[in-house]
């Protein structure tokens, strides 16, 4: 009998996988890091790793279509003369005109207004379209101060001082030349077509002691009317939240690493910052330690996609959430109906993230007038409103099932975790046990 040496099955490296090697080749060919939009794409512990327990013998539920389950939230009760009241705890996160088309900004305003929630400006200032269509508009106060002026500050319903964002804690904005159209350039006082890199630090304050004085100035200028938010990326949530309280925030926006951006280096998006799930409990702990939980409201963002995510964030102690990337999907971003056009851009629907190139076939992340015209702000706004309403109904469904007559009564005791990692991060027991890793306990 003759034996042949069997051929070795080709084996690819887990370390140098296809994506990693393609990145090495891309870097070698182009000499520049990869820039893209969106948030972290890697899999990290997330809300999917938590489950609600529901009511049974020890708790009783509320009737799904009969008994009331409130969803409203009031933000800015600490110092502002005019806190805002929203019908749903799901808000729209800051996204700039410049990164988004004017039509997309208008659609966000329309959708948020129909659903009874707020929307937020971004780096580049306030456009008349979004102010006109947004009943409640949060005005971002950013390091670049592009388009910043006291008239718009006074027109806003709230002011959000942006210290960081989840996609890139420690990084500034980026808008490449393709998207610096005449209108964007004028609003930002920049030459047309340049690669614009916004500062990562504010130009006229450093640290929480200064920020306290900056907030005093903003309050004085707006006669103490507007709630003032501080937005932070998910870096060191316990200390960052404590210092935000010290600096005088009415509301804190905490954005985890799945939170999106218009454009940043891939290495930044995927390797800096903590998952949203890991940020919430330390943030809430800081508020509780200071006796400020529910007095300074906490808005959580970064990877919120459905009512279950919202309910879980609220149960862990948030007062509200914000959505960005998911709102763009509701408007029409990455729609499979545009597959042919995504293919022409070398990608596929669901994976398109070259938002900085300004060639968005859906007319959302572009300044090309022809592409932008594709987005009907009225229709897209309606889609967003529908999505917000569905999510709100989903949160109510879960809250009633857990026996709560307001979504804010959801609590960590309503939850268990499917993985040890999620149990440790969310500080809820691993399913089937009373074990919270890092917090003692054990057995059943």
């Amino acid at each position, binding site marked *: 009998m003759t034996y042949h040496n069997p051929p070795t099955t080709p084996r690819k490296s887990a370390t140098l996988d296809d994506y990693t090697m393609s990145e090495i080749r891309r870097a070698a060919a182009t000499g520049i890091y990869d820039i893209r939009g969106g948030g972290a794409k890697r899999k990290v512990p997330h809300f999917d790793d938590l489950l609600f327990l529901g009511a049974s013998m020890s708790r009783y539920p509320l009737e799904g279509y009969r008994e009331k389950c409130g969803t409203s939230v009031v933000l800015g009760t600490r110092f502002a003369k005019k806190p805002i009241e929203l019908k749903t705890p799901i808000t729209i996160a800051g996204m700039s005109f410049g990164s988004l088309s004017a039509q997309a900004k208008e659609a966000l305003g329309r959708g948020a207004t129909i659903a009874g929630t707020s929307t937020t400006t971004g780096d580049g200032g306030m456009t008349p379209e979004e102010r006109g269509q947004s009943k409640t508009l949060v005005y971002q106060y950013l390091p670049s101060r592009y388009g910043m002026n*006291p008239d718009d500050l006074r027109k806003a319903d709230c002011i959000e001082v942006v210290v960081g964002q989840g996609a890139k804690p420690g990084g500034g904005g980026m808008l490449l030349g393709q998207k610096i159209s005449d209108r964007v350039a004028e609003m930002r006082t920049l030459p047309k077509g340049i690669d614009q890199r916004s*500062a990562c630090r504010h130009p006229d304050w450093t640290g929480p002691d200064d920020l306290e004085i900056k907030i005093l100035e903003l309050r004085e200028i707006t006669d103490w009317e507007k709630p003032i938010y501080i937005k932070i990326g998910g870096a060191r949530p316990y200390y960052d939240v404590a210092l935000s309280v010290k600096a005088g925030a009415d509301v804190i926006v905490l954005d985890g690493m799945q939170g999106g951006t218009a454009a940043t280096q891939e290495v930044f998006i995927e390797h800096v910052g903590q998952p949203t799930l890991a940020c919430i409990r330390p943030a809430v702990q800081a508020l509780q330690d200071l006796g400020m939980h529910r007095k300074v409201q906490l808005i959580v963002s970064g990877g919120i996609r459905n009512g279950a995510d919202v309910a879980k964030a609220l149960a862990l102690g948030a007062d509200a959430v914000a959505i960005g990337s998911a709102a763009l999907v509701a408007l029409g971003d990455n729609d499979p109906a545009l597959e042919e056009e995504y293919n022409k851009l070398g990608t596929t629907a669901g994976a398109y993230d070259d938002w900085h190139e300004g060639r968005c076939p859906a007319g959302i992340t572009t300044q090309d007038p022809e592409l932008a015209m594709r987005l009907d702000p009225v229709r897209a706004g309606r889609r967003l409103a529908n999505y917000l309403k569905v999510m709100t109904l989903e949160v109510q469904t879960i809250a009633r099932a857990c026996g709560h007559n307001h979504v804010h009564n959801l609590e960590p005791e309503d939850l268990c975790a499917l993985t040890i990692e999620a149990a440790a991060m969310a500080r809820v027991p691993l399913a089937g046990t009373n074990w919270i890793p890092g917090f003692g306990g054990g057995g059943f």
Partner: protein
Amino acid sequence: MRTIDLAVTPLRELNSELHRQSDGTNEAEWEILNPRGQHAVAVGVDAPIKVAVRGPVGYYGGGMNKKATITIHGSAGPGVAENMMSGSVVVKGDASQYAGATGRGGLLVIEGNAASRCGISMKGIDIVVRGNIGHMSAFMAQSGHLVVLGDAGDALGDSIYEAKLFVRGSVKSLGADCIEKEMRPEHHTQLATLLDKAGIKDVKTSEFKRYGSARKLYNFNIDNADAY
């Protein structure tokens, strides 16, 4: 003239009174006594009034000013006249860091020295400093003019866009993408106008050098990475 004594009147009341003034106001002249380094003095004014502050102010004095003529008879803390839109702010003493930061219009005159980051991220404001300015001044300056009769510190005009800088004394170093440029006749005219507006008559425009953007970093090129 309306006089408000900050030794007895809360800051909130002062700013609130100033915000009540509009274009046709009869109360066109204001005097603020005893500011004693308080922050956010006379911020967000939006009326063509004259405000004399008798003493030093803390952070953000005259911040976001529109239309008003504010004179600080003393020194000013960080961020004086930050994000000014129009009108003018005159500091009779020295100014701390970030003077005129992100200003979009109007005229800021500092009769003493200004510390670091003077004119940072300026977007159209004109700033005239009689003394010296500190390091990283006009960082990412987008538009407007910065005139310095004395010396400038390290990294002047780092990552500058289209703002124009005129310095009479020495410049310790220039920041990334900032270069000395020729003083053409139109620049002499511009500078003369600015000096005149600032009430400065004892210097000649020929004593100044002009600095601005080399415009080499406007679009990213990997071979320029060392410049960042």
